[in-house]
């Protein structure tokens, strides 16, 4: 084999996998979104799919479910990304300040949340938010009645059904997803902090800089590349959240709780399957995500050493 062929040969299997399992389906998803793909097209000896032009898209945009799903998707992503990044950064800063033993203790502790599989995460929080035997209602009942009434407008939480109504389903979902995803942010921020030379902080202290000032003028600018990677990853993860929502909403029956992923899945896989329509929703979701992340993706490509 000529020497110049060697790297291409080694790359070939991986490239084939990516092309067949990621790029081609991506093309197919777009293609299907312009067609009517139903039972007749997925049976053995499929009939050719009827070309619909933009019909799937207009139908999606005119559906009530589109606005419900879009609102749920965006609200959830904004709140969860913000909470995850803030919590994760604070915990990262905290671990940086702690002594060696204590910081190891915290790392091992938060790893429990991080390592829990998404299905188990959702199930655990579903159990903790159980109306009758859940530990959350028990905890809320512990609050002094006056305080609880003042803050929440009620004192008795026994039997509060968190998982019936879409807004409280999303509340539980936010808690569950933040719980599972802040550890990764925290550990990444910690890794970034450790790479900042301590001389900078010593100089800042000598100059009498306040902690907030030090964070704004030294820590944040130096960790900016880390934060942009973390921001993009969090947006991607939270925009398309599926597993935890599927478990908490109890499958595909609660239409008010749909986000775009769950809606696309439901249209494509419940009877009768409307795969072209589902694909159109998936394309809309992907385009929204690409628009939001495009700017940051460019920045990652620039900072990552791909040369």
């Amino acid at each position, binding site marked *: 084999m000529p020497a110049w062929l060697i790297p291409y040969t080694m790359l070939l299997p991986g490239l084939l996998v990516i092309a067949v399992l990621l790029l081609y389906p991506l093309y197919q998803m777009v293609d299907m979104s312009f067609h009517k793909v139903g039972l007749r097209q997925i049976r053995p000896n499929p009939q050719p799919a009827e070309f619909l032009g933009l019909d799937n898209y207009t139908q999606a945009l005119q559906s009530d479910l589109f606005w419900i799903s879009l609102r749920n998707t965006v609200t959830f992503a904004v709140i969860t990304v913000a909470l995850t990044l803030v919590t994760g950064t604070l915990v990262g800063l905290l671990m940086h300040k702690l002594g060696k033993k204590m910081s190891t203790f915290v790392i091992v502790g938060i790893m429990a949340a991080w390592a829990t599989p998404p299905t188990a995460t959702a*199930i655990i929080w579903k159990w903790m938010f159980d109306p009758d035997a859940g530990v959350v209602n028990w905890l809320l009942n512990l609050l002094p009645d006056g305080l609880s009434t003042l803050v929440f407008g009620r004192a008795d939480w026994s039997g509060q059904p968190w998982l019936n109504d879409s807004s409280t389903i999303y509340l539980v979902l936010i808690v569950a997803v933040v719980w599972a995803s802040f550890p990764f942010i925290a550990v990444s921020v910690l890794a970034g902090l450790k790479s900042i030379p301590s001389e900078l902080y010593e100089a800042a202290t000598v100059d009498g800089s306040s902690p907030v000032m030090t964070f704004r003028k030294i820590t944040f600018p130096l960790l900016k590349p880390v934060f942009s990677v973390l921001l993009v990853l969090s947006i991607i993860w939270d925009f398309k959240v599926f597993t935890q929502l599927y478990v908490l909403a109890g499958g595909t029956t609660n239409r008010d709780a749909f986000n775009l992923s769950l809606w696309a899945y439901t249209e*494509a896989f419940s009877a009768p399957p409307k795969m072209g329509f589902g694909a159109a929703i998936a394309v809309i979701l992907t385009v929204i995500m690409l628009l939001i992340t495009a700017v940051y993706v460019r920045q990652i490509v620039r900072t990552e050493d791909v040369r």
Partner: protein
Amino acid sequence: MRPLTATRLKKSGLNAAGVLVVLFSVFPVYWMVATAFKPNDEIFTTRFIPFPLAPTMDHVQRVLTKGVAGHSVWQYLLNSAIVAVGTVLIGSVFALLAATAVSRFRFRFRTSFLILLLIVQMVPAEALLIPLFLMVKRLGLYDQLLGLIVVNVGFTLPFAIWMLRTFVAAVPKELEEAAAIDGASRFVTFWKVLFPLVAPGLVATSIFSFITAWNEFVFALTLINDQGKYTMPVALQFFTGQRSTDWGGIMAASTLMTIPVIAFFLLVQRRMVSGLVAGAVKG
């Protein structure tokens, strides 16, 4: 006793915050395990029972013998293990070859390939579900664990290559050059010199792929119909009935599913982070 100075006060405040963070993270996992070992009258109560007063193996035994959806939980754990191990075996060979190519050779389209790796990681798996479902069906892999393995290889590979490439690049090139001068063939150099040195990185990467495949839910839900071939995450859904949920059983099964992941996590946590944010931290 030393006086309580401001610094010491600050330090104990920070430590207290650390303990709170740990409590918040660990309690739900602890609660899963505690519920798994509680008898039903300690589970279905409005009282708070911090730990099993009369610990029982009933739930664990029940899910392992009687199981759920007609099969023992052993079967689902086995299916999950087959999918995860299969993904790792196929994926790590492909990843090692590609990672060596991009970090040991300079060639045209090398940069394009690396950018491609980054970009395909942005594609939401859920969006590709529909075309992949049809593809798997046409290939006759529907309802087969092999179909799940193939799809999981696709979704774990870009990150695996990305992570492994830093490990290969860390091995000094001089070692391979020395072997080549001593007359070793390219294959021998790869197998006897590079491979042993990259092995720890390969293990870390493999564990990451294993966890991803072990946890994977959406594809397992869509590509498998036969209950005997369910993986653990899908099987867990069947503990919830129309009227009631077998919380003891579901917590026992969740515990069995979570233990291997937590064990693996403790092994590779550091490397996973450095892989995920590789390059971004460089000053």
